[in-house]
């Protein structure tokens, strides 16, 4: 079931939460709505669910207008950040809820409900918790129950609001891989909201980056990460270094380093900002490399298998962040307080007035 969002606006008082957003989520796709807090992603998700009414604009499920349809009639599965399990019901009753509240004529028989609930609990690998209460389960288990409960009514679309936001790092990582596998099994159109770029890139088929109520970029995880549409997306999707640069006829110059910038073919000596990710900076321990800038190593921090360096170039106030594998760091024999030479190997230039060329 595809979801079409057609020029949707939503404000709360003076705050514009969703600013004229149009998007289409294709059938069976798992999409991440990614953005900082206050970017309108949760509001948009709630508008799709029917938990908020848009001020203007339409929502269509598979071409059918659902804008004015009550939440309870939309058959959406909604998973909340804080699980929202019914505290006074057992796990079994929670999962069965959507089936037991159906009108008598559509309600499956008791035996049928039981079979279905147990099947779902097996799917989320928690069939042994059927007679426990939510407070007896861990956060990760509760969220899996919440998901089973949402799936019990066979929703046309599955909406997840920061589903792993309240969990610790290890459980988060496990659960998002598990969600990806689950989605590959059941193939229901799913949208999940997150502010964690790693989560969005790892789990989803498609990433929609939002900021201040607007869509900044919409594309596959690779596209969004490798070809950010604008400075905001570039900065939001990971650490980045900014260098002064000039673009001239398809080439960006950062100091003495020349890097290809084919999107600026035909431009004449324009000043701009070059965005370079920490892993796109080469680090050397000697000066014999064309265009490499001299810098002092101010801080070395080892984070698992990678080493992060903070370097200061001779004529700059700003620190440069570089990242390299531990073995490479050992080969170079760099040390805190010592000398190094750095050279960007890839960059993306944006002109000051955001005249973005799409390469």
């Amino acid at each position, binding site marked *: 079931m595809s979801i079409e969002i057609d020029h949707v606006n939503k404000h709360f008082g003076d705050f514009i939460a969703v600013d004229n957003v149009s998007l289409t989520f294709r059938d069976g796709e798992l999409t991440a709505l990614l953005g900082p807090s206050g970017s309108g992603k949760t509001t948009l998700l709630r508008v799709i*669910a*029917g*938990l908020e009414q848009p001020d203007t604009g339409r929502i269509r499920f598979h071409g059918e207008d659902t804008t004015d349809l*009550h*939440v*309870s*009639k*939309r*058959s*959406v*599965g*909604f998973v*909340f950040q*804080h699980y*929202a*399990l*019914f*505290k*006074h019901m057992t796990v079994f009753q929670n999962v069965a*809820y*959507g089936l037991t*509240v*159906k009108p008598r004529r559509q309600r499956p028989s008791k035996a049928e409900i039981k079979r279905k609930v147990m099947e779902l609990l097996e799917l989320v690998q928690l069939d042994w918790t059927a007679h426990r*209460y939510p*407070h007896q389960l861990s956060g990760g288990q509760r969220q899996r129950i*919440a998901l089973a*409960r*949402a799936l*019990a*009514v066979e929703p046309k679309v599955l909406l997840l609001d920061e589903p792993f936001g309240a969990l610790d790092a290890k459980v988060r990582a496990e659960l998002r891989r598990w969600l990806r596998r689950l989605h590959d099994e059941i193939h229901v159109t799913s949208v999940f909201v997150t502010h964690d770029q790693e989560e969005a890139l790892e789990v989803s088929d498609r990433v929609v980056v939002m900021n201040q109520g607007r869509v900044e970029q919409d594309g596959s995880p690779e596209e969004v990460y490798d070809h950010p549409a604008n400075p905001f997306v570039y900065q939001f999707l990971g650490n980045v270094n900014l260098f002064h640069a000039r673009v001239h006829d398809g080439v960006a110059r950062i100091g003495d380093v020349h890097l290809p910038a084919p999107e600026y073919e035909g431009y004449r000596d324009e000043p701009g900002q070059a965005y370079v990710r920490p892993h796109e900076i080469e680090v050397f321990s000697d000066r014999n490399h064309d265009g490499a800038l001299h810098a002092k190593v101010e801080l070395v921090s080892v984070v698992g298998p990678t080493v992060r360096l903070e370097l200061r170039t001779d004529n700059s106030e700003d620190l440069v962040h570089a990242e390299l594998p531990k073995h490479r760091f050992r080969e170079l024999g760099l040390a805190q307080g010592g000398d190094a030479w750095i050279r960007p190997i890839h960059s993306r230039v944006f002109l000051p007035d955001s005249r973005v060329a799409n390469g």
Partner: protein
Amino acid sequence: MTSSSLSSSVSHTTLVAHWRRATEEPVWLQRCLIAVALTFLGLFLVLPLIVVLYSAFSQGIDAWQAAITEPDALAAIRLTLLVVVIAVPANLVFGVATAWAVAKFEFRGKSVLISLIDMPFAISPVVVGLIFVVMFGSQGWLGPWLSEHDLKILYAVPGIVIVIVFGTLPFVARELIPLMQQQGKEEEEASLTLGASGWKTFWHVTLPNIKWGLIYGVILCNARAMGEFGAVAVVSGRIRGETNTLPLHIEVLYNEYQFTAAFAVSSLLTGLALVTIAIKSFVEWHDERRQRLAAE
């Protein structure tokens, strides 16, 4: 190395001991405070209670029974129960609706509403009675219109019900507002997305979550509705056998020097209050146990 770590651990234990003493009151002060509390409770609560029961039965069980079964007493009991049966459900509905509105919606005047809810506790009951006399009395704003349509509010059951509803207005709402605000609306939203209607959501999700707070509010409301005196005294007209509730009936008996009868009826009202407190304690105990279980 060893000696220094040893000395540091010694100084650490003395520090802890010191700290513990510093945050505790001296024993004599603890005993004094407990003694004051218990003496006060005994003098002003237990003793009067014993006096009520003693005086009620001072002329034997037959006199007690006669006092509470004479027609005027029975009429007062019936009227009191009637008022409770109307006032408590009215405040139940008002309390749930108000708490729902405050906890789940954003609207103008919400903070004003929350502060106004406590008004009935702040105003003296006599003043409450007078307010309604001004409104419904024959010289009042609505008096002429009411007498034209042959409607009787003052010096009749409707007037008594109105002042008691007013006086007990805050009980249920006050219990529920913080409870429902704390619980938020996620569970209700989850229920709606699962296809339940608003009514089913209220019945299956909201009500079980607020059940204990609701019962607690109803019990307090009930106790106050039975015991209300001042406001009722002003609006009821004190017609014996017709508009006297139990507290008013007791006063009438007392003023007529029928002390034993007055205390007999008082013992009945006190008994009802004790039953209410017993139920309240049970509810609290049950709620605490449930929360403790939930926390484990």
